[in-house]
């Protein structure tokens, strides 16, 4: 009995160390200039702020992830980017489940809030407005562009609410 107790206590310590390490790493990264691969970061600070006409976003087809910062709450994360018909979009999956909404809480916050965001692509920051697209023919192109990531997302799954799509629209539109 005593041996079992000691073994359980040792196991508890061994589990405690990685849990504390993960929580500390997340805490440590919370105000960083952008996210790490594993943990959200803070405000995107470095990089030139883009001004000028709407860019040709076709170059993003070759980019796997971008850094997305919401203004409220001020936090940033890595996210896939989709391009369709000259517009860029981001996606948040698993949104029809409670755990998905908990995991992808940023999407809930973006949908409920003002949607103001900054994205950093290739070291350049772009001020954008997140606009959720719930239905419409443009989702056909967005769904098709998800093939870039091997995703089976379609217009139907988006319109059913399983995947939320946000257009990264210019500010003030």
């Amino acid at each position, binding site marked *: 009995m005593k041996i079992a*107790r*000691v073994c359980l*206590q040792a196991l*508890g*310590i061994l589990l*405690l*160390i990685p849990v*504390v*390490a993960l*929580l*500390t*790493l997340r805490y*440590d*990264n919370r105000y960083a200039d952008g996210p*790490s*691969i*594993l*943990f959200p970061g803070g405000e995107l600070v470095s990089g030139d702020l883009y001004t000028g006409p709407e860019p040709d976003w076709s170059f993003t087809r070759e980019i796997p992830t971008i850094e997305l910062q919401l203004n409220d709450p001020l936090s940033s994360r890595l996210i896939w980017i989709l391009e369709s018909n000259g517009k860029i979009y981001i996606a948040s999956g698993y949104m029809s489940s409670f755990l998905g909404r908990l995991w992808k809480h940023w999407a809930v916050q973006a949908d409920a809030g003002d949607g103001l965001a900054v994205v950093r692509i290739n070291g350049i920051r772009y001020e954008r407005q997140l606009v959720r697209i719930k239905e419409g023919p443009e989702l056909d192109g967005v769904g098709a562009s998800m093939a870039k990531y091997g995703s089976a997302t379609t217009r139907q799954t988006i319109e059913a609410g399983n995947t939320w799509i946000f257009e990264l629209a210019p500010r003030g539109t």
Partner: protein
Amino acid sequence: MKTKNYLVLCVAVSAIVALTILFVPGLSDTIEREMLTFLSTNAR
């Protein structure tokens, strides 16, 4: 080990781990890099 002593040990270990990660330069980057290497090697 008695429960009270064990809880004290847990708090002490947590504090040491957290403070080490926070204040040893480069350690957090190294841990994250090793985690990524592990995940990219083993995750399927």
